[in-house]
C-alpha cells in the first residue's frame, strides 16, 4: 500500500452506456456476451459520436465465458463502429471485473500511456458455457491426439462404459475451495453480524424504489440504450412493497446453527438477494485534454482505487467482506473519512452484504482488531446510500455491474456539484467471489 499518491495527470469519466439488464432466461436468451458487449459499445459510440475513433484501449471481461470468447473484448471492438485499430484486452476478477477494468485503463491514462479508453464488462447466464466432465474431456482429448482409428476407438471406449460421464457440467456460483454457494457464505456472515430479515428487506425495497424513481425521472436516458426490445431493467419492481418482500421464503442459511447448536433464523430470500442476470456495460474515460479537445462532457475524475482480499477459506472472515478492509485504506490514503462522501455505491450482492459492511465499519472492536484502525471507521448516512438503486433492483450481470455503478456515480457527483457549486464525491464498493473486494473513489470534475 502506497503511503502517498504520486502526482499524475487526471483520468476523467466522460459518460457511460449499458444495455438494460435482464433476468436470466428472459429477453437475452439467444444473445452472447459478444452481442451484448458490442451493443453496449455501439450505444456508447453513438452517444458520443465516436465512429471511426481510435481509442487508446478497450478493456473489459466476462466472468462466465464460452471458449469461443477467448478474445471477447477485441472481437467486440472489431464488430463495433470504433476504429479497428483500437487495441483491446480481456480481464477478469469475478464480480470486480468491470471496476478493475476501469482501474486498469485509468492508470494508463494517468501515466500518459493512453489518452482515452473504454472499460466495461458483460455477463450472461442465459448463454453460459456448458462443459463436459473432466473424464469425458480427457477421453476426447486422448482420441483427438490418437494416431489412427484403432487408437481413437480405444480412447473413447471407456465412455461407453460410463454414461454418467456424459452429464454436462454447468457453472454455478459455488466457491471452489469451500463448495458453498455465495449465498450460503453470506448467510454465515449475516448470522454472525445478527442482520435481521426486516433490515435486509428494507434495503431491497429501497433499491427498487430508488431505481424506479431514477428511471421515471429519466436519469438513465443518457446511460442506457435499449436492446432486443427491452428498454428497462426487467428485474425492477416499481410496485414491490415490504409486505410482498416479507412473504418470500428464505433460500439461503437454512440449517445454520448458533454456537450452542440451536438453529439460527434463515433471513435471505430471493427478494433480498440479487437474481442471476444478463447484461453489459461500458464507461468512457479520457485525459482531460482528450475530452476537452472533442468538447466531450467531463462528469467526474476517477481519483483512486483499492483492492483487498480476505481469508474466507478457513472461516476467519466472510466471503464478501473484502471491501470492508479496502475502503478505509482508500479513504485514509486520500485524507478522507466517510463523512466526506456524498454518495455511497455499495454493490448489493445481497442486501445483507451491504448491511454487514456498514455494521463492520461501525464496530469498534472489529475495526481495531481486523482493520488495524484506532476505533470504529464510521457510519454511512443511509440517505447517501445507493440513491438511484443498485443490484437488487437492477440485477447483477457479474462483470457488467462495475460499469453500471461507475456511470451512475459519475453522473450523480456531476449533478450534485453543479447544484451546490462544491465538489462531490462517490465511493464505490464491489465485493467479489474468491474473497475479493474492489473499491474506487470518484469526484466531480
Amino acid at each position, binding site marked *: 500500500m502506497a503511503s502517498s499518491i504520486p502526482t499524475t495527470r487526471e483520468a476523467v469519466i466522460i459518460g457511460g452506456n449499458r444495455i438494460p439488464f435482464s433476468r436470466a432466461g428472459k429477453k437475452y436468451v439467444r444473445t452472447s456476451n459478444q452481442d451484448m458487449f458490442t*451493443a453496449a459499445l*455501439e*450505444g456508447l*459510440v*453513438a*452517444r*458520443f*459520436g465516436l*465512429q*471511426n475513433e481510435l481509442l487508446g484501449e478497450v478493456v473489459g471481461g466476462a466472468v462466465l465465458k464460452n471458449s469461443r470468447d477467448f478474445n471477447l473484448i477485441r472481437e467486440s471492438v472489431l464488430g463495433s*463502429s470504433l476504429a479497428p485499430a483500437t487495441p483491446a484486452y480481456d480481464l477478469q476478477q469475478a464480480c470486480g471485473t468491470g471496476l478493475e477494468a476501469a482501474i486498469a485503463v485509468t492508470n494508463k491514462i494517468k501515466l500518459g500511456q493512453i489518452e482515452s479508453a473504454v472499460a466495461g464488462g458483460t455477463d450472461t447466464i442465459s448463454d453460459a458455457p456448458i462443459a463436459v466432465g473432466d473424464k469425458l474431456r480427457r477421453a476426447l482429448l486422448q482420441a483427438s491426439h490418437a494416431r489412427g482409428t484403432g487408437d481413437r476407438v480405444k480412447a473413447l471406449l471407456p465412455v461407453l462404459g460410463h454414461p454418467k460421464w456424459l452429464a454436462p457440467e454447468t457453472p454455478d456460483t459455488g466457491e471452489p475451495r469451500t463448495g458453498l454457494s455465495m449465498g450460503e457464505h453470506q448467510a454465515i456472515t449475516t448470522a454472525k453480524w445478527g442482520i435481521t430479515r426486516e433490515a435486509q428487506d428494507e434495503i431491497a425495497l429501497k433499491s427498487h424504489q430508488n431505481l424506479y424513481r431514477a428511471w421515471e425521472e*429519466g436519469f*438513465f*436516458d*443518457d446511460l*442506457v*440504450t*435499449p*436492446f*432486443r426490445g427491452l*428498454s428497462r431493467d426487467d428485474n425492477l419492481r416499481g410496485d414491490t412493497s415490504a409486505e410482498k418482500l416479507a412473504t418470500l421464503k428464505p433460500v439461503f442459511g437454512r440449517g445454520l446453527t448458533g454456537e450452542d447448536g440451536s438453529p439460527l433464523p434463515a433471513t435471505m430470500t430471493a427478494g433480498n438477494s440479487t437474481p442471476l442476470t444478463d447484461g453489459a456495460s461500458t464507461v468512457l474515460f479520457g485525459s482531460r485534454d482528450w475530452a476537452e479537445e*472533442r*468538447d*466531450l462532457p467531463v462528469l467526474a475524475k476517477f481519483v483512486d482505487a483499492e483492492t483487498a482480499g480476505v481469508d474466507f477459506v478457513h472461516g476467519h472472515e466472510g466471503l464478501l467482506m473484502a471491501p470492508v478492509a479496502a475502503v478505509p485504506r482508500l479513504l485514509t490514503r486520500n485524507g478522507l473519512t466517510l463523512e466526506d462522501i456524498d454518495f455511497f455505491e455499495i454493490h448489493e450482492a445481497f442486501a445483507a452484504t451491504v448491511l454487514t459492511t456498514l455494521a463492520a465499519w461501525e464496530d469498534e472492536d472489529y475495526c481495531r482488531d481486523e482493520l488495524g484502525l484506532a476505533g470504529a471507521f464510521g457510519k454511512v448516512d443511509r440517505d447517501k446510500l445507493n440513491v438511484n438503486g443498485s443490484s437488487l433492483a437492477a440485477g447483477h450481470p457479474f462483470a457488467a455491474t462495475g460499469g453500471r455503478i461507475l456511470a451512475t456515480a459519475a453522473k450523480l457527483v456531476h449533478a450534485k456539484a453543479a447544484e451546490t457549486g462544491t465538489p462531490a464525491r462517490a465511493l464505490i464498493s464491489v465485493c467479489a467471489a474468491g474473497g475479493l473486494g474492489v473499491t474506487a473513489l470518484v469526484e466531480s470534475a
Partner: protein
Amino acid sequence: MTDSYTRFANGGLKPLVKKLGLPQPAILRRHKPGSPLTVGPVLVVSDDASAADADAVTTVLTSWDLDVRRSPELAEGERFGAVVLVLTGAEHPQDVSAAVLTVGGILRRLAGNGRVVTVSRAPAAGDAPALAAARAGVEGFVRSLGKELRGGSTANGVQLADGAAVDSVSAVATLRFFLSAKSAYVDGQLLPVGPSTFSGDIDWDRPLAGKVAVVTGAARGIGAAIARTMARDGAKVVVVDVPPAGEALSAVANSVNGVALQLDVTAEDAADKILAAAKPLGGPDILVHNAGITRDKLLANMKADRWDSVIAVNLASQLRINARLLERGVEGLRIVSLASTSGIAGNKGQTNYAYSKAGVIGHTAATAPLVAAAGGTANAVAPGFIETEMTARIPFATRSVARMLPSLAQGGEPVDIAEAICFLASDPASGVNGQTLRVCGQHLVGK
C-alpha cells in the same frame, strides 16, 4: 421500396395495364450522387416581356453544364429532359398564350421523369387586376399540367416574391431542386421565393457541408432518411428519439457518423438538451421537427389522451423548443417542421392529427419572421402518402387506394421528404421562409 403494383405495372404486362386503362405509376428517378441533373436537354421558353429573365435563366442553366435550348426543335429520337417556362414579365393574361402553347407542343417529346418548371412572380398587394390575374393564373396552370403529365414527369413552379431577381441565389436553388431528381415526388407545387441574404460559393454536391443538424424522431422511417440524407449532403447530425427507440437510434447515429440523443421532445428541458448535444459539434444550424405520432379515432370516440398526446408531440413540442432556442439566442437556425397533407385536406379519423399538422403550417408562417430576425428560416414540408412502417399499418385496401390518389399514382419514399427538407435547410434556399412545401406526388385534394 417501390410498391408491388408499381412493379407490376412496369413489368411484362405494362401494355395490358395501359390497354385496360389501369393507373400507370412510373418508376421515379431519384437522386444519386454524380448522376446528371436532368434526363435530357432543357428548353427555356418565355413570353416576350420575360425574354431578359429567360436569358438570365439560360446563363444559369448553362453554367451547370446543361444542354440548354431556346427553340423546340429536336433531332430525331431526341427528347427534352425539362422545360423552363419563364413568365416573370407577363403583365396581362393574354401575354402568355404563345409561350404556354409552345410548352404544350413539346410535351409529347418530354422524356419520362421530365420536368416542367415555371418561373413567375407571386401576386402581391397593390398589383393591377390584370397583373394579379396573370400571376395568379400560373398556379392553376401548374396544378393542371401536373395532372396531365405522365411517365413520372412533374410540373412545379418558382414563384418570385418581394422583388427577388430571377437569378438570385434562392430562385436558382429552387429551380435546380425542381429540375433535379431530388424533387421526384413533388408535383403541382408553386414555391414562393424571396431574396436571399446568402452570398458565397455553393457546393451543390454537399450543400450542408460544415452544418450541424438536429433531427427529431430519427430512429426510423422518414426521420432516419432525413438523417442519412443530411449526412450525405455533408451535415453532422444529432439524431433524437424517445429513449425506448434507442437501439434503432444508435444504429442510425453510427451509420451517419452522428450523435444519438435519447430524448422525449415533449420534455420541458428538451431544447436545452438539444443545445447541449449540438453545441460541442458547433451547432445547431439546422433543426428538423420530424417527431410525430398518430392516435386515430373518430372525434365521437376520441379520448383526451389520444387528442392531447398528438398535440403535445406533433405541435406543442415544436413551439416550446423553437421559443426556447430563440430565447437562448441561437442564430441562423434553419427550422423545417413536418406537416402533412392531412393538415391541408383533412382526413377522417384524424381530427387530432390534422389539427396538429395544420397547426404546424400555421406556426411555421408565424415563426418565420421571428427566426428571420436572427438570420434563420422556418419552413414546413407536408408529406402525402409515404411508404413507411407507419403507413404499412394502414389496411391493405385503404393503403392501395391512398397510393393511387396522387397524380404520380404511387406513394412516396422517405427519401423524397428528406430531399425536400435538405433543400429547405440549405444556405442557398434561405430566401424561402414561412412556406409549406407539399411532397405528395400531387395529392388530388387540397391546395
